């Protein structure tokens, strides 16, 4: 079992996420955002999310580079500066979000329960996390089928809308029933205490991580406001 990668507590991940969100909203200079990106790269790396970390990091750096290159003009009409500006910040937030999205659903549920979250909200979110990665594939299959049948035409947008939506709805309804059945058959609705394979504990390491993130936030803000002029 690959539990060698560092395990970060849900609450620490949430704190990191909130801080990154704050930074994405407050930082004005791309340089300071890049500093935060470096930190997030290390954050994802130590949790074993190597590919995602590298991907978002370089995407962010590339956007920052494009922005310095083009000034405030943006790259053609399709990539105006506003969009690049937003994408750069989104990639920072995405890195923090990634660590949360990739948690096993049971851990999310257990963490929610521990934080006193009602099951009526924790359960749908568990299902959302399970379903979200498959949505693209579902849409892709429907589009492929439509192309095979030659039914995808811009001449009849309403009809195309119907043809896309109906199979997506039928499939999703079936998947949601299947998932719910398989969860119920394994006792997800047990009103008693659930346990968790992953040890849900707030360790010293999590505290250190939060302190480091707070430190990074302070440095970035300081850098952003007073060093770069």
């Amino acid at each position, binding site marked *: 079992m690959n539990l060698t990668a560092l395990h970060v507590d849900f609450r620490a991940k949430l704190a990191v996420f909130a801080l990154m969100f704050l930074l994405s909203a407050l930082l004005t200079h791309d340089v300071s955002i890049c500093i935060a990106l470096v930190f997030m790269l290390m954050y994802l790396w130590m949790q074993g999310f190597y590919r995602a970390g590298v991907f978002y990091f370089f995407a962010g750096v590339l956007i920052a580079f494009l922005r310095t290159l083009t000034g405030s003009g943006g790259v053609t009409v399709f990539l105006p500066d506003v969009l690049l500006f937003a994408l750069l910040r989104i990639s920072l937030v995405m890195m923090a979000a990634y660590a949360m999205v990739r948690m096993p659903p049971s851990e999310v549920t257990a963490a929610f329960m521990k934080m006193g979250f009602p099951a*009526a909200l924790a359960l749908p979110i568990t299902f959302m996390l399970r379903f979200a990665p498959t949505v693209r594939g579902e849409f892709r299959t429907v589009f492929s089928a439509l192309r095979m049948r030659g039914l995808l035409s811009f001449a009849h947008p309403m009809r195309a809308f119907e043809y896309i939506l109906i199979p997506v709805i039928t499939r999703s309804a079936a998947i949601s029933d299947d998932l719910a059945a398989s969860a119920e058959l394994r006792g997800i609705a047990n009103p008693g205490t659930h346990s968790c394979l992953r040890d849900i504990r707030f360790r010293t390491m999590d505290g250190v991580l939060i302190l480091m993130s707070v430190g990074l936030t302070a440095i970035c803000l300081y850098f952003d406001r007073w060093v770069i002029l």
Partner: protein
Amino acid sequence: MYSSKLSSESKRLSVRNLATIGIFSVLMIILAIAVAIPAMSVLYFSLFISSPLIAFLSAPLFTFMLLKVHKRGTVLVYCLIMAVLYLISGTPYLAAWFVLSAILGELAMSRPNAYKNFIWITISWIICSLFRATNGMIDIWFFSKQYLASGVSKEHFNQVAHFYYSAPWVLLILVLTAIGAVLGGYVSAKLMKKHFVKSGLLR
């Protein structure tokens, strides 16, 4: 020997119902993102078209979700999930705003059998859509300092603020969104009847 009847189905939301809500919420969120992200590149599009378009396109998903679950509390849970997502994504003020929409949206469904009635469903959807449409405005109205400080170019801010601070423009955006939601509700009623009600897939 006794026989259990259909009516024994509990009025509380079951795991199955919650799964349906979760999964259709994902579809709606992804649809909204798919419209909103490309819309960002054109200012007027993102201001005037994106919210009404999302209200129109997501309506069938919302309607199907309500019809499939047909129990009190569906809209409440759906909007609260949105609130939680805004909370997690670091905008607690929008979360509070969505809690309000959860209460209002569910109130619209308080009539008996409202969960089978396309008109009440559409009204509830209008409420949810209007709340979503005001997200950007809330940012500017109450948090303009933070919004500006976030490094948005002054020029962009002025353009957006010009529209969001003027009552007629705001009204126009809201009216367009409501129209989008109403049309969406109308189209989904037709689609649901055509595909799912007759076929017995939805009761």
